[in-house]
């Protein structure tokens, strides 16, 4: 029992020290919280998780990357005065990789979702987008809304398995839905008259409008669905978020962001 008490006391003492230590550290942190902003500058490197598979945001090309958000990542690294280092991830591994500390920020067409917000911070939105109809230009006026499209006699086409098919299934009850497995030739189906409309991401629709004369993207400034693109940041790190938001705000105000956007979309 004597031994017990001693051990217990010793441990209480240790525990007290721990509590005091933490309280003290906590007090100091309120004035100068540890931030990834300092860790990045000490390391001399900004690590960016990116999937490299989402045009026009992040595209793996050989050993390197290109795209709007890849240019933005380089711009952020330059603002920090460090080298950018891209860390390849997959959409399914994005959150686990990010939370495991494999990178400081994740960039590349990442949609803002509340599911991810539970485990991370987002920058201010870089871009607002959503799904729009892509149609033959002659049909531009008559296929504007979900109600316009959802009529017998209209054929909506979709690539299977993603959010485009999900959108078609949940919104079109009267129109005929055709699935087309090839993401490259799906646009020609509309030009050939085998389908009338493809509801897809506004940015993709804009790209295809340029590539395929005769196709028109409808109301790209007023999408049928709403999604924001943002950058994923460590949860709770207000200092790093303030830096990234300020950099993004300036990049948008000076026209730098638009320059990258036009480079990959125009």
């Amino acid at each position, binding site marked *: *029992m004597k*031994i*017990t*008490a001693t*051990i*217990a006391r010793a*441990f*209480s003492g*240790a*525990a*007290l020290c*721990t*509590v005091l230590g*933490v*309280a003290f550290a*906590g*007090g100091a*942190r*309120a*004035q*100068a*919280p540890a*931030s990834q*902003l300092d860790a990045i*500058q000490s390391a001399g490197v900004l690590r960016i998780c990116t999937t490299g598979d989402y045009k026009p945001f992040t595209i793996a090309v050989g050993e390197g990357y290109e795209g709007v958000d890849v240019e933005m990542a380089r711009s952020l690294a330059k*603002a*920090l005065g460090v080298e950018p280092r891209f860390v390849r991830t997959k959409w399914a591994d994005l959150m686990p990789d990010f939370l495991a500390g494999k990178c400081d920020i994740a960039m590349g067409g990442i949609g803002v979702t509340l599911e991810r917000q539970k485990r991370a911070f987002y920058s201010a939105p870089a871009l607002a987008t959503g799904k729009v109809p892509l149609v033959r230009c002659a049909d531009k006026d008559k296929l504007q809304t979900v109600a316009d499209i959802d009529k017998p006699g209209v054929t909506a086409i979709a690539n299977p398995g993603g959010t485009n098919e999900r959108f078609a299934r949940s919104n079109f009850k009267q129109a005929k839905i055709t699935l087309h497995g090839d993401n490259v030739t799906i646009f020609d189906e509309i030009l050939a008259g085998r389908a009338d409309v493809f509801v897809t991401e506004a940015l993709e629709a804009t790209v295809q409008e340029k590539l395929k004369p005769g196709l028109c993207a409808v109301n790209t400034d007023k999408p049928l669905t709403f999604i924001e693109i943002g950058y994923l940041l460590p949860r709770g790190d*207000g*200092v790093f978020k*303030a*830096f990234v938001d*300020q*950099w993004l705000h*300036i990049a948008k*105000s*000076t*026209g730098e962001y638009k320059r990258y956007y036009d480079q990959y979309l125009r």
Partner: protein
Amino acid sequence: MTITSPFKGLKLAVLSAVAGLGLTAAALAQAPASQLEAIQSRAALQVCTTGDYKPFTLAKDGSFEGIDIELAKSLAKAIGVEVRFVQTKWANLMDDFTSGKCDIAMGGISVTLDRQKRAFFSAPYLINGKAPIARCADVSKFQTVADIDKPETRVIVNPGGTNERFVRANFKQAKIEIFPDNVTIWDQILAGKADIMVAESIETKVQEKIRPGLCAINPDAPLQYGEMGYLLPRGDVVFKAFVDQWLHLAKATGEFAGIYDRFVR
């Protein structure tokens, strides 16, 4: 018994440690220490300012005047404390601020990402940037950088600052003349010894007012984007929330515009 007891003791010790941690963390999370309290405790708002940048901050006979001086007084009043100005120099601004000589720095401070590494900024209170100023007869021929950057154009600039940096980076054909006197540099244009100067857009508005014959060119659509904000302690979101709210109200009520017009219009 002799074995279980120590473990019980251990468990208790560990438990209290964990409970203590939980409590400390919870208390901190709810009420982080903020400069907002420190300012109220000492009943004074300490404002770093350079006192050399018209129309924002100008030292005069031992006191200060300017847009940001009036706004500093307004902020102090909103907090319910006295204002105390701490004079600094541009070269010492960040060191003075981060070493705690003041709670906020005000006076024509441009938002830059280098400063953002070491401090927070309030919401921007002014969009600013570089604008040309020329004789009023020449306004239509000097609208863009390309208009100005011709061999026959004589650009005048004060050395060493962002004006010279802008001129060197953007004008390759025009003749550049360095003129070190910030007060008489404007008269060189009026006298026909130079054609154009590029300066902060708000400064061009002030000079247009005090020197008839000079016209600011598109000062509200500057050649280079910039904005001004107030420097705040890094990570102190409570104080930043207060300052941003005060600034928002000063703008919404017209208080800001009233002060601005007094010094610029």
